[in-house]
C-alpha cells in the first residue's frame, strides 16, 4: 500500500511529511528566515532541493529566490537543516529536533563561534538590537547605571550566519564572532548592467554589499559576507559575480557524506585541502602514538 505523505506549501512555510504509523518525519522550511541561498540545494545528497529565481516586476526590488523541495526525492536526512546558515530548515522526528545523523556522528555540525561579553555592551538597548541585521540579538535587561548591573543579552545562535556585523557595530569586544564559512567573493563591475542592484536587493546582510556613490554600482565588503550565495542565484549576468567557498569550520567527524557535501559546497580543491589536512593530522597522530615523539 502506498506511503502516506503530506506536502503543504504556504507563503510562510513549506512542510513535507512522512506519516508512518509509528513514526513521523517532518521537514519544515521557514520562508521568513530562508533567504533563497544556494547552500541547501548544493548540500542535499538527493538533489531534492531547487532554488528558483523569482520573476522581477518593473520598479520593484528583486525578490529573494524561492526554495522548493521534491517530496519524492527527500529522505529526511537533515543535512539541509544542519547546514542552513540562517537556520531556516528544521527536520524533526516524532516532533523532536534530534537528527540521527548527528547522534550517530555521521555528519558534522558547522561550528558557530559566537562569544558574548556583557561587560562591553553599551547602554542603548536599540543600539544593541539594531547591530544584528537579522535581529537575532535581544536585550532581556539593559545596562543599569543605578544597580551597576551588566546587560543581559540573548543571541539566537542557531539562526546566526556569523556575518560579524554586530562585532564591528558594537563597541570593541562586546561580541566576538568567527565565521564558519570562508570564501572569496568578487563583483566584476565592468560586466554589471547599468543600475542593476539585484544582488544587493537579496543580500540579507546589511553592509556585505553596498552601492558605490561614484557610479551607482554594487561593491563587496568581504568582512561581512557569509558566502551563502543568494546574490549568485539572482545575478543576471554570467561571470559578473564570482563566489567561491573555500572552507567550512565543523566538528571533527569523519564522514563520506560530509566529504561529498563539502565538495559540492566548495570545490574539489577545498575538499582536497581538508582531506590533506586531516590526513597529515592523522599521520602525525599515529607517528606520535608509535614513536612517542612529542610535538610536530
Amino acid at each position, binding site marked *: *500500500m*502506498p*506511503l*502516506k505523505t503530506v506536502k503543504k506549501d504556504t507563503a510562510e512555510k513549506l512542510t513535507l511529511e*512522512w*506519516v*508512518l*504509523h*509509528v*513514526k513521523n518525519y517532518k521537514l519544515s522550511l521557514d520562508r521568513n528566515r530562508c533567504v533563497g541561498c544556494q547552500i541547501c540545494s548544493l548540500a542535499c*545528497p*538527493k538533489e531534492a532541493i531547487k532554488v528558483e529565481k523569482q520573476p522581477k516586476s518593473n520598479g520593484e526590488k528583486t525578490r529573494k529566490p524561492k526554495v522548493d523541495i521534491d517530496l519524492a526525492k527527500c*529522505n529526511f*536526512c537533515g*543535512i539541509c537543516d544542519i547546514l542552513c546558515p540562517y537556520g531556516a530548515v528544521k527536520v524533526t522526528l516524532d516532533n523532536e529536533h534530534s*537528527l*540521527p*545523523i548527528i*547522534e*550517530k*556522528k*555521521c*555528519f558534522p555540525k558547522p561550528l558557530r563561534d559566537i562569544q558574548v561579553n556583557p561587560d562591553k555592551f553599551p547602554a542603548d538597548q536599540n543600539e544593541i538590537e539594531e547591530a544584528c541585521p537579522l535581529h537575532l540579538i535581544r536585550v532581556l535587561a539593559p545596562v543599569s547605571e543605578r544597580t551597576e548591573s551588566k546587560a543581559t543579552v540573548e543571541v539566537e545562535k542557531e539562526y546566526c550566519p556569523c556575518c560579524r556585523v554586530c562585532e564591528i557595530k558594537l563597541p570593541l569586544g562586546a561580541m566576538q564572532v568567527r565565521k564558519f564559512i570562508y570564501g572569496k567573493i568578487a563583483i566584476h563591475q565592468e560586466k554589471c548592467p547599468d543600475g542593476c542592484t539585484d544582488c544587493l536587493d537579496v543580500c540579507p546582510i546589511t553592509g556585505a554589499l553596498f552601492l558605490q556613490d561614484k557610479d551607482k554600482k554594487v561593491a563587496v565588503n568581504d568582512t561581512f559576507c557569509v558566502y551563502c550565495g543568494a546574490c549568485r542565484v539572482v545575478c543576471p549576468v554570467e561571470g559578473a559575480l564570482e563566489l567561491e567557498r573555500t572552507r567550512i569550520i565543523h566538528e571533527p567527524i569523519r*564522514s*563520506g*557524506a*560530509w566529504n*561529498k557535501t563539502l565538495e559540492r559546497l566548495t570545490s574539489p580543491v577545498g575538499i582536497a585541502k581538508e582531506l590533506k589536512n586531516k590526513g597529515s593530522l592523522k599521520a602525525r597522530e599515529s607517528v606520535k602514538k608509535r614513536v612517542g615523539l612529542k610535538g610536530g
Partner: protein
Amino acid sequence: MAETASKIRGKIRQKKREATGRGRRPKTPRPRIGVFVCQCGGQVSSIVDVNELTNYAKTLPNVVYAEQMNFPCSRLGQEEIVNAIKKNKLERVVVAGCSPRLYEPTFQRCVSQAELNPWLFEMANIREFASYCHQANPKQATEKAKDTVRMAVAKAKLLEPLSPIELPMTKKVMVIGGGIAGINAALDLADMGFKVYVVEKTESIGGYMALLDKTFPTLDCSICIEGPKMVDVGRHPNIEIISYADVLKVDGHVGSFKVKIRKNPRYVIAANCTGCGECRDACPIEYPNYADMYLGVRKAISPPFGQAVPLTHTINREYCIECFKCVDACGAREAINFDQKPEEIDLEVGAIIVSIGYSMYNPSDLEWTGYGKYDNVFTALEFERLILAAGPTGGKVVRASDGQKPHSVAFIQCVGSRDINRYEHCSSFCCMYTLKHAVMLKEKYRDDIEVYVFYNDMRSNFKGYEEFYNRAQKSGVKFLRVKLENRKILEDPQTKSLTVSGETEDGKPVTAHADMVVLANAAIPQQTATELAKILKIPLTPEGFFVECQPKIRPTDTDVPGIFLAGACQGLKDIPYSVAQGSAAAAQAAAVLSKNVWTVEPLVAQVNEEMCSGCRVCESVCGYNAIAVENRGDKALARVKEGLCRGCGICSSACPMDAISMPNYSDRHIIAQVKAVMGRGDKT
C-alpha cells in the same frame, strides 16, 4: 517488370524440379486405407447417419476397409483397430470422430501397436465440424461428414512415415518466485536430486506468507512454519537462491531453456555478509519499509525483515547519504561495496516453474472507503503488520490518529473484488483471514473490544474453515450481512472515529460505529505477470493470471512444454493449496527432468537448403523464434530449431522461394484435400 517476375517464377519452378529430382509431378501412391467411423456415444451418431457415412467411405479411392464403432478410444476399441489393421494389411488409418486435440496421441499409439508408423494416421473431426454445429440439419451434417472424411482419405493417401525428434535434457530447473509455492516446488525438486535455481525479485524469499502474523484456521504463527522451510531452501546443497534479481530473457525450449537473469546490486557482497546487523545499527538513515506496509521504517542498510533468507543486507541508494559508517562498522569483513554493478547471469535449465504470486489492490480510488483520506482506515495487510508481535508497533493494535487502542473494529469484505467495475473475481482467502483477524482481536482483548464484520457471502469452504467460522461466531464477533452496493464509511473529524453503513438484501439500513476499519481489499494478479508472460511466451487471462493448459486435468501445465505453474499466479489460492500446487508442479517438472532425452513430434518445419536464399522472411514471421538464418559455408541458410517449432506453418506460407515445408502438411497434402472437397480429387 512483368517479364522479370515471370522469369523468376520460371527459375523457381526449374529449381524445384531439380531439387525434387523429377521433371514431372510425382506419381500418386496407392496405399491401402482403412476408415473407422466413431459414433462417439451418440454424440456423432444421433445427428450424422454413420451407416451411410461408413458405406460412403468404402466407395472412396484406396479405401479397402471401413467400419463404424462406438468407442474406438476405449481399450477394446483400440484392440479392434489393431486387429483390423493387421488383418486387412492397412497402410494408412483414418479415424472419423472427435477433435485430434485430445485423442490423436491415443490413436497414434494404437496405430504403432499395429506396427504402423504413427504418422500414417489421420483424424477427421466429424463431431465438432458436423454433428455439433449442424444439429438442426442431420442430412446436411451427414453430407459435411462425408466431405470431411473424403478430405482425410485424400490426405492419408499422401502421408509419409516420420520419426520423432529427440532433444537433450538439462537436469536443472528454475523456479521463478520464492513464495510458499515456489519454496515447496524447489525443496521437492532438490530432494529428488535436481539442481534448482530459485529466482526471487525481492531481497528475500518467503513471499506474503513471511509477512503474516497467524494462519487460519489453526492460528499457527506464519513465519514459524514458513521460516524453517526458508532456511532449508537457503541451506540445501541443490538449491541456489538468486535473489534481488529479474528474469530478462528466456530462449530455447523444454530440456534446454537459456535464461538470462539480472542480479541487481545490493552494494553488499553476499559471500562476505554474515547478516550480523552491525552496519544496520550504525546507519543513521531510515526509510518506510514495504515489508511493514509502510507503517514502520527500516535502515538504509538492512534486511527487509529479521527472518529474511538470504540475510544479506541491502543498501537502498535512493535513501543512503553515503556517510560510510556502515563500511567502518563492517570492518575487516569488507562486505560493503558501493561500486557494485548489476550482474547478468546465464543459466541453462530443462524446466521452469512460475510461482510469482499475487499483489494487493490499493483501494484509495474507491471513494466510499475513505482509504488514504481517513487516518483509521486500514487494509488487511496493514492490520496484519499491526497485530504482528514483530511488527512496527510490537503487536499493539493502535489507531493512526491518536495511537490509542480501538474499542471497536469493523471489517469490511469484498473491497474491489466481486465488483465488475474493479475486479470481478473473488479473492478467495479474504473471508478466512477476516475471520482470523476477528477471532484474534476477540481472543486478545475479550470484552474490551467490539468486532463487526460487514460481509456479503461467507466463503469458508475447505477443511476446518466452517468450524473456524463457528468459533468466530461463538467468540462474540458480530456478523452483519450487507449488499455490496451502497456501503459507506464516514469519519467524525473530531474523534477520527468512523461510522460504517450498508444495506441488507431487503433494503434495511445497517450501521456500526467503529474506532478502526479494516478493508479486505482485493488480491490481484502480480504486476510483473504481463512482462513475464511475454518473456516466457505463455498466455495470461484478461485479468492477468497465468492460463493453465487445461483447467481440470492439467492445472499446473502451461501451453509451453516444460513450463509449469504453481500458487496464486495461476489463480488466487490460500497457503495449503499453494503448497500442494507447488509440489504438484515439482512432480510435473520432475517427470520432464527425469527423462534423458525429450522427444518432440516431427511435425516441424523443414528447409530445403537447395532452394533457400537466406532472405530472412521466415525469421521475421516466426512467432516462436524457431527459425533463424545462419551462415553455413559461403551460404546463408535458414535453420529450424526443432525444440521451439510448433509446426504452425507460417514460415512455410511466407517463404518466397517455397523452400520450407511442413511434413504431412505440405502443399501436396493441402491441395489434395482441397481437390477432394471440391469434388475434383483423382478417382483412382
